[in-house]
């Protein structure tokens, strides 16, 4: 399972990266895209929308099912990935390159999020149950 060490994670399978310019980039993990299967539609939030932590803000739909994406931290949507409108399959091809949206965070503290090791542990315990 590919879980890059330089990213943070959520229990709801988003990955989070703090950029040098202070924005935060968000996508879904490789595990999440595997569970969903072939992606056919991605709906991203409007730029400028203010999100609370944990708010539903995007949808990824595969041939199988639709899944909500939640804001890992509070912030204002600064950008969305324009490629995904016409090529949602990029999420399957490389989940960590196919980011969904960027946030200008209210507070760039990511310490409440999971580390790669924590996320890995969570996936392993899910498999056991």
């Amino acid at each position, binding site marked *: 399972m590919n879980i890059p060490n330089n990213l943070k994670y959520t229990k709801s399978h988003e990955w989070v990266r703090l950029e040098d310019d202070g924005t935060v980039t968000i996508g879904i993990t490789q595990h999440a895209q595997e569970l969903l*299967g*072939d992606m*056919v*539609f991605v709906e991203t939030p409007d730029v400028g929308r203010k999100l609370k932590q944990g708010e539903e803000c995007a949808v990824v739909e595969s*041939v199988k099912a*639709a899944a909500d994406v939640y804001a890992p931290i509070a912030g204002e949507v600064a950008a969305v990935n324009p490629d995904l409108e016409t090529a949602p399959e990029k999420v399957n091809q490389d989940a960590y390159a196919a980011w969904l949206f960027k946030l200008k965070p209210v507070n760039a503290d990511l310490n409440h999020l999971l580390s790669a090791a924590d996320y890995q542990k969570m996936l392993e315990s899910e498999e056991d149950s």
Partner: protein
Amino acid sequence: MVDFGGWEMPLHYGSQLDEHHQVRRDAGMFDVSHMLAVDIKGETARDFLRRLVANNVDKLTQPGKALYTCMLNLQGGIIDDLIIYFLTESHFRMVVNAGTADKDMAWMLARRDEIAPGLEITPRRDLAMIAVQGPNARTKVWQVIAGAQTATENLKLFQAAFFDEYFIARTGYTGEDGFEIMLPAGDAADFWNALHAAGVAPAGLGARDTLRLEAGMNLYGQDMDETTSPLESGLGWTVDLKSDRDFIGRQALLERPAAQQLIGLILLERGVLRSHQKVTTPSGDNESDGEITSGGFSPTLNQSIALARLPLTVSAGDEVQVVVRDKMLRAKAVKYPFVRNGKSLI
């Protein structure tokens, strides 16, 4: 893997989209052994079926010929949809859905005791069934079953023949050419592996669903059930009301003409239609507007399509609105099927 009518079945073997395209463009195979073959044997077989199902088995005159039909309850609701093969005057074979197999058997045995005591009705759990579908499906089957070509190359659509230990039918659930093949369950794994070696790609339930949706074929439990009549499920063509044959459910159908219809939808905006989404129509009165019975993404058309049960006032070409999460999305009503033999019909 998912549970399907009590059977543990694969949704896909890798990529559902690839499996879908493989069937449209070349050949794919589905293990459909969960479906139940039932043999009906005895002198009264045809009389029994005349009464049991809504389509008319008198259309079956040539050995091997198949008929698609609904089996109705007294209220005209659909107990199951099935295929009946005519083999000889004293031997018919039907294939019923997995999830309904137990109740179908119970219903048929009870009707048998009333109508045709002595008729043998035998579930054939000893048979496996593999559907090989796609433009190259038949050729690849012939490569695998030596000698089968001569026996099956002249089969018309909806016709079947025995060859050796195989029962080979030119039927399917994908809108493509191909065969559905029954064989002894113990030989199924070897047959599957031989087909795989011949270049037939395994395909799962996911692709089976997108293929049948594109082909405009109903799924029992989703597009129809015991509360819906075939006339409201796009299956009026399978109901024989012309002859005065008194099949079970006939009276109810005559007393209860269709109030709704099954019609196709194509989403005009980005998104994915799913079953149970509400549909509002320009001519509807809100309360009786309809809902999507089957929806999904069409890999062939590269857009979302659905079957929806809507008021009779809606016609092909009309625009309707579908509630997708918190949005109203525009969709166009169309005649289905959407895709046949690899080509868009839209």
